[in-house]
């Protein structure tokens, strides 16, 4: 039986085939899917914000930020026997849902999340092999640990597999 594992906002989860990791209604958040194809182990992080250095509190949930969430998720994957050098990445989300006229780039969270994820994965030498990011629409994503396929569902912008 295929188990669907829900990954909520500011959470990350690791699962093995035949599980499917799912995040519902991503807006400015970014879904970071990491996969190890020989062991068929996948991880999905649903990050909200680019960088933990921006947190106003010292004590925070590491799942919120791109840098800390990716680190923690990889640690979890390694615990499950994954060789981090074999990981590949797929990312989706980072939309700007509301068009707000503002000079402050704090309003462009979506784009900044995408940039932060890209540079964090580059730093870890994890290649992003496909992505579906930015735009102004929401996405539900399903990450199949059997195939490593990431399915993106939208309202009015079709369904895509990357």
């Amino acid at each position, binding site marked *: 039986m295929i188990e669907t594992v829900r990954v*909520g906002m500011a959470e990350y989860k690791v699962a093995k085939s035949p599980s499917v990791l799912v995040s519902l209604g*991503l807006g400015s958040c970014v879904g970071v899917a990491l996969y190890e194809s020989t062991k068929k182990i996948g991880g999905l992080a649903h990050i909200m914000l680019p960088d933990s250095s921006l947190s106003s509190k010292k004590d925070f949930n590491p799942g*919120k930020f791109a840098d800390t969430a990716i680190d923690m998720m990889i640690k979890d994957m390694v615990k499950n026997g994954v060789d981090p050098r074999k990981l590949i990445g797929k990312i989706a989300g980072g939309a700007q849902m509301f068009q707000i006229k503002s000079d402050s780039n704090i309003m462009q969270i979506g784009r900044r999340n995408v940039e932060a994820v890209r540079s964090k994965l580059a730093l870890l030498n994890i290649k992003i092999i496909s992505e579906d990011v930015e735009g102004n629409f929401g996405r539900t994503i399903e990450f199949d640990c059997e195939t490593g396929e990431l399915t993106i569902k939208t309202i009015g912008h079709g369904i895509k597999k990357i």
Partner: protein
Amino acid sequence: MFSDIELDALKEIGNIGAGNAATALSLLLSNKIRMNVPKVAIIPFDDVSNSVGGPENLVAGIFMRITGDISGNILIVIPKEKACNLVNCLLKQKPGEYGFSEMEESALVEVGNIVASSYIVALSDFTRLSMKISVPSFAYDMAGAIFSFPLSLYGYMGDTAFLIETEFAEGIDDINFHFFLIPDDDSLKVLLKAIGVSSFD
């Protein structure tokens, strides 16, 4: 984090804003408007969209940023069907299957603007704090995606969402929407202090 008295005070703040907003809305729609007692919700980010049908439910969202003596965000969320009823009530036309026309969208935004402005005016009068709201911005998509932006803004400050939520309803045309006031973390203290209820320094 907050005492019962402080939470009650924040509910009362919501009540004062929402009462004025309901009056304005009732004049606009020429009908009776019901509102519930505002709720102060301190819940996981992921649970926020449950009150409007879950993260994948199609909703209209109107977002405004508050600046001034306090800062924060306002988000008005209207489930698809109720948004169509609201458009129908205002413009006497039924929106098409695939979203709203420019005119219909602008009508929804204007309702949002009127409701938010009257809410903020009452709040400002009561607390003697100055606040103004930005030009409203509109989106029509999954509820989770609509919430992600204001929740992320709050995410810099906290691990759980903090919202003051009021539900407005009009019975004849079956209109219903949710109004969320999401004050920035430090502004909560300013609000409580302004009305003389605060255990903070």
